[in-house]
């Protein structure tokens, strides 16, 4: 397949469990595709060069920077955004609940990226050490919280997850 520079291509992917599609050119960043083409504005864009982590989403379950990926590359894959983290009926996930309980957010702009990152972190490592928590969130910038309550939230989320019925 070759797409011309201005050519639009119908890009299909599964987003939060639902098949979605929209026409977009090859250069459309996944972050912009989610936000502007699909209207899922919960994924935020803070730097567009992969440093801040605000745009982190789950690609086939793995956290990735959606500003460093073209939507067309993600075609056919499964994406989870912050809008897809809550449970049935909109109940907050343990990670989301922990951030609320521990005041792990202030302005809320970086929060979706942290939530996606931490959701995958605790899935892969349900009982992280303090160092593993820091390493796990080390690629996400927050300018409001000084990270104190974010780190606390991750530990609390691990507790809440451990209490969940499996």
């Amino acid at each position, binding site marked *: 397949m070759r797409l011309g520079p201005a050519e639009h291509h119908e890009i299909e992917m599964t987003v939060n469990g639902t098949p979605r599609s929209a026409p977009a050119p*090859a*250069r459309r960043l996944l972050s912009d595709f989610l936000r502007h083409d699909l209207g899922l504005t919960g994924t935020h864009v803070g730097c567009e*060069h992969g440093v801040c982590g605000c745009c982190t989403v789950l690609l086939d379950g793995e*956290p990735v920077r959606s500003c*460093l990926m073209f939507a067309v*590359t993600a075609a056919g894959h499964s994406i989870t955004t912050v809008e897809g983290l809550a449970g049935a009926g909109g109940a907050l996930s343990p990670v989301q609940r922990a951030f609320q309980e521990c005041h792990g957010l202030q302005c809320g702009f970086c929060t979706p990226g942290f939530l996606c990152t931490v959701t995958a972190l605790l899935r892969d490592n349900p009982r992280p050490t303090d160092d593993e928590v820091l*390493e796990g969130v*080390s690629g996400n910038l927050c300018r409001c919280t000084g990270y104190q309550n974010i780190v606390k939230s991750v530990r609390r989320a691990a507790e809440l997850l451990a209490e969940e019925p499996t």
Partner: protein
Amino acid sequence: MKPPAFAYHAPDTLGAALAALAEAGDGGKVLAGGQSLVPLLNMRLAAPAELVDINRITALDTLEVTAGGVRVGALARHSRVERSDAAAGVQPLLRRALENVAHPVIRNRGTVVGSLAHADPAAELPAVLALLDGTVEVRSATGRRTVPAGAFFTGPLESALLPGELAVSAFFPALPPRTGTAFRELSRRHGDYALAGVAVTVGLDEDLRVATARAGYLGVAATPVVLDLTGPALAAQEGRPAGECDWAEVGGYAAARLDPEPDIHASAEYRRTLAGVLTERALRAAAAEGGRSDS
């Protein structure tokens, strides 16, 4: 900060990718993990006419570990290689270096071969490949060649890859017995490009005395720098066991042979001193490990 327009290819076979690259010629660029390329595109510091996205070529998503070494395919992500106990067993420097590559989320997407092809002299993997005398397997529509690390990195962000070529894999040779390794770098923030960094191997003889010592540096020149420190290490050892070697002296020897450039984060003088300190620390750790690996 939006990327400029480009024509886009999404081949699902190596042959189709090589054909697309051949056709694109000078204007072609390979997109693998995109963790270095896409920022450049978003800042419009690069504007390739044709982008060949190899992410659908699953045949390139390989990691082969043999007694001789680790072969990493062009689509193997950092995180996959980092998590592989088999790869770490044969070549521990891979995991040790990868743990220092940016952040976990970046490593989920970035590829080992992509990092080599990007040829950033501040990056970890080029220094490791250079230190180990590894190779890069290169294919084009018309042929294939194996490029030794020493010839692969030609300048800052410049490799020996020619238009139409694709680096399909990289080979990191295994260690000889009784060889210890270590990786040390210092960055301003955790996960940043290092101010200076070093990967080392220390080989011991049967009496656990140093037989070889080599260091590969990042962040101190336009390309990775490899220094053979065997001579000074032998001199500093003065016949004692490796554990008692005066590694500070070897670090100083190495620093005197490095000529780093200054940038906004560190002066040349600091970088040189730092490289010496890191060399000392890495050699000491590697020598200790080499001794343990014998038992």
